[in-house]
């Protein structure tokens, strides 16, 4: 069915009057329908982005707070008592608060910022614009997706204000800490709220993901075959597929957890004795079962976070190198390979749970296989840059930064993927360093690249480049200074999640290094405020965009008006005649996708 038929059909919620002509009709829009319960994919994208930014600030601030404890374990900070109250009596974060901060930092950054904030923003914004659709397959479901996310955010936020604090058993919420209210202060109400928030979040992700898949497969404009799609769309498509297939499994894990918590079942619990309570009646449960269900989502989740960044980086690198992306089909193929392998490697998170060593060796092999498509992507990015006519826009810098971080973090993945090395490295700072660089910071860089690059399309204004450069260099340098030393700490066996390392003879040597990391973390956090200022200032006061296609890019979003209305194109949706990467071809600097193939044109 064509885009017109969907948007104009009675079932399509009457977005436009069902006229045959394609002029953009201005239906009556109120503040509520335009900014709050909007069904315009561009507005929903901005809602996801702003909510994600709020969470990024909160989650980042939490990391600064617990880094204060790690960097300055002997000191007290009276201002902490002002912020945290009884959780930092006398200016020192309590162990309970420390664990709550670590847990919430992880949950929020992984799910709310880098899943909802990243693919929620860019899948919503870019899919219709880059494939030539007036909106998503179901704008209503899209709106629901945001509001479920919003509800999840409210519940998660409220969990921080309950009497015994938010859940504090780690972002993975392993039972029994997550299953027994008596296990820790945060395991009661805090965990209930955590579960409700995550259930709402899963619903939001599924609604969003279904929509992205249906839109990419069904709503492409004329001529936009799958192999003419920009790599951003391919990446966002595979991201959605991963989410739709893996989140339900996490959900089943949560349902069993809810039964264990509230209905006395024994899925995950067995032979437990609680101090002050006594032996529990639960028999025959298996805590490892939860880990299987969790990591079956958990590993694809890593790629749900990473793939959108990869896609956007591919696009931005090509546009700003003024060269076609190197190896387009190889790029798509490697995305596909990563998506498949994502489902086959979850047990590498469980090498030391008593997993059968033979089974472990199979997972080692499958895990190391991911290096192949990853390396293909890295080589293709580098060869795209090679001898390019590079424009160092902020988006481009963050994309190059992404490639750098992906290489650095990916290499340590090869270490951790080996079950033998994992015996020493598991649950140490080496793991922290690895996943923060390759998944956390790298994806943040992808997100920054996307924001800087598409900001003119989102708000019709430019961000300030000087501030952006400052933001980039502080963040890149800072990210390496924070996480590089952690590799050494991890190799020395320093475990993660400890409250105070100064009491351990073996880790006293890292006191100064810890202080260094904490100091840099504060500086990097401050640099993000620079970005926030730049963003919000530019939304209202930035230099206005005056040309339709400021980057001389080929993709369809730059054929829309500078401030596109609901429906994106005035008049007919343009037809596509070529792939998105005809840069520097036949002596022309760029050839937009809408340009018909000329008679004397060389084939690509």
């Amino acid at each position: 069915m064509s885009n017109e038929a969907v948007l104009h059909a009675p079932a399509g919620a009457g977005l436009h009057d069902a006229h045959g002509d394609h002029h953009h009709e201005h239906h009556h829009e109120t503040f509520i329908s335009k900014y709050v319960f909007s069904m315009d994919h561009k507005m929903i994208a901005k809602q996801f982005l702003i909510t994600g930014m709020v969470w990024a600030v909160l989650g980042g601030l939490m990391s600064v707070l617990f880094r204060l404890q790690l960097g300055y374990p002997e000191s007290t900070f009276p201002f902490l008592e002002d912020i945290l109250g009884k959780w930092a009596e006398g200016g020192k974060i309590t162990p309970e608060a420390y664990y709550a901060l670590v847990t919430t930092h992880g949950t929020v950054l992984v799910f709310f910022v880098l899943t909802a904030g990243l693919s929620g923003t860019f899948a919503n914004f870019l899919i219709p614009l880059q494939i030539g659709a007036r909106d998503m397959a179901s704008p209503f479901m899209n709106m629901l997706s945001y509001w479920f996310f919003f509800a999840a955010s409210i519940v998660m936020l409220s969990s921080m204000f309950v009497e015994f604090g938010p859940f504090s058993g780690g972002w993975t919420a392993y039972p029994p800490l997550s299953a027994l209210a008596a296990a820790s202060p945060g395991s009661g109400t805090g965990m209930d709220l955590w579960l409700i928030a995550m259930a709402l979040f899963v619903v939001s992700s599924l609604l969003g993901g279904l929509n992205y898949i249906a839109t990419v497969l069904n709503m492409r404009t004329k001529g936009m075959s799958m192999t003419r799609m920009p790599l951003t769309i391919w990446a966002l498509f595979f991201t959605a597929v991963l989410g739709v297939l893996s989140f339900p499994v996490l959900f089943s894990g949560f349902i069993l957890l809810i039964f264990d918590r509230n209905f006395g079942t024994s899925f995950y619990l067995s032979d437990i004795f609680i101090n002050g309570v006594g032996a529990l009646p639960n028999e025959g449960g298996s805590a490892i079962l939860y880990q299987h269900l969790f990591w079956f989502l958990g590993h694809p989740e890593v790629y749900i976070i990473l793939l959108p960044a990869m896609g956007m980086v591919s696009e931005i690198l090509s546009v700003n190198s003024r060269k076609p992306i190197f190896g387009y089909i190889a790029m798509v193929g490697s995305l596909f390979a990563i998506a498949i392998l994502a489902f086959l490697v979850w047990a590498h998170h469980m090498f030391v749970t008593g997993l059968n060593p033979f089974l472990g060796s199979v997972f080692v092999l499958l895990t190391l296989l991911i290096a192949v498509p990853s390396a293909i992507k890295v080589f293709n990015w580098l060869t795209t840059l090679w001898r390019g006519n590079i424009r160092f826009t902020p988006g481009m810098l963050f994309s190059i930064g992404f490639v750098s971080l992906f290489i650095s973090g990916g290499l340590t993945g090869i270490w951790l993927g080996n079950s033998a090395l994992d015996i020493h490295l598991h649950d140490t700072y080496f793991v922290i360093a690895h996943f923060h660089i390759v998944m956390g910071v790298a994806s943040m860089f992808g997100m920054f690249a996307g924001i800087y690059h598409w900001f003119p399309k989102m708000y019709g204004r430019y961000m300030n480049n000087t501030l952006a450069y400052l933001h980039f260099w502080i963040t890149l340098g800072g990210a390496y200074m924070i996480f590089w030393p952690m590799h050494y700490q991890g190799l020395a066996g320093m475990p993660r999640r400890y409250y105070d390392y100064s009491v351990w003879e073996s880790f006293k040597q890292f006191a100064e290094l810890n202080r260094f990391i904490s100091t840099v973390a504060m500086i990097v956090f401050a640099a993000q405020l620079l970005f926030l200022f730049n963003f919000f200032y530019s939304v209202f006061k930035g230099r206005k965009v005056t040309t339709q296609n400021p980057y001389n890019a080929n993709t369809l979003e730059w054929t829309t008006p500078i401030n596109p209305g609901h429906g994106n194109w005035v008049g007919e949706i343009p037809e596509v005649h070529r792939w998105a990467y005809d840069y520097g071809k036949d002596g022309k600097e760029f050839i937009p996708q809408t340009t018909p193939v000329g008679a004397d044109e060389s084939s690509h």
Partner: protein
Amino acid sequence: MSAIANEAPKRIHPHKFTLWVAMGSIIMMFAGLTSAYIVKKNQSSWLEFDLPVVFMYSTLVIIASSLTVHLAAKAFKAREMARYRTLITVTALLGVLFMALQILGFMDLEARNIALTGAKSNSAASFLLVITGLHMLHVLGGVIALLVMFIRAYVSSVKNYSSLSIELVGTYWHFVDILWIYLFIFYNWIG
């Protein structure tokens, strides 16, 4: 459908497609649960017990409801609206009956001292409750969808010639039917 001139031929409607992807997602949830069931079964202290006999009847009921929803779609396309309304009503009632029978099954287990929840429960019975219960929720979703269509068929003053809704509900209904048959086979012979 050929009345809509600007519709591209043979392209699946986006809502139908979305439903298919959603069904894939639901399959993953039940695949997760049934594989957890298998993992758990191979560990210690697994309680073996006979399934409630009433599950056999509920299986027949849901198969019958699949037939009625299929006939309802045929009636709609033939514009036999009275017949259509009767058939979707029957389908919804069969759906409710199915859920009632499942609850009878749970009561049967409890009566045989096989606790589904609580301190004395074995995860074998708890799994049965959780998986069957989740499936019931999916049937309930189908019943609600039928109810909405039922109200639409009576209240709406505008004649609706698009068979999209009934096709969507029909597909979904067959899906939960097949899902139950899978679970029934799984409980009896696989798990």
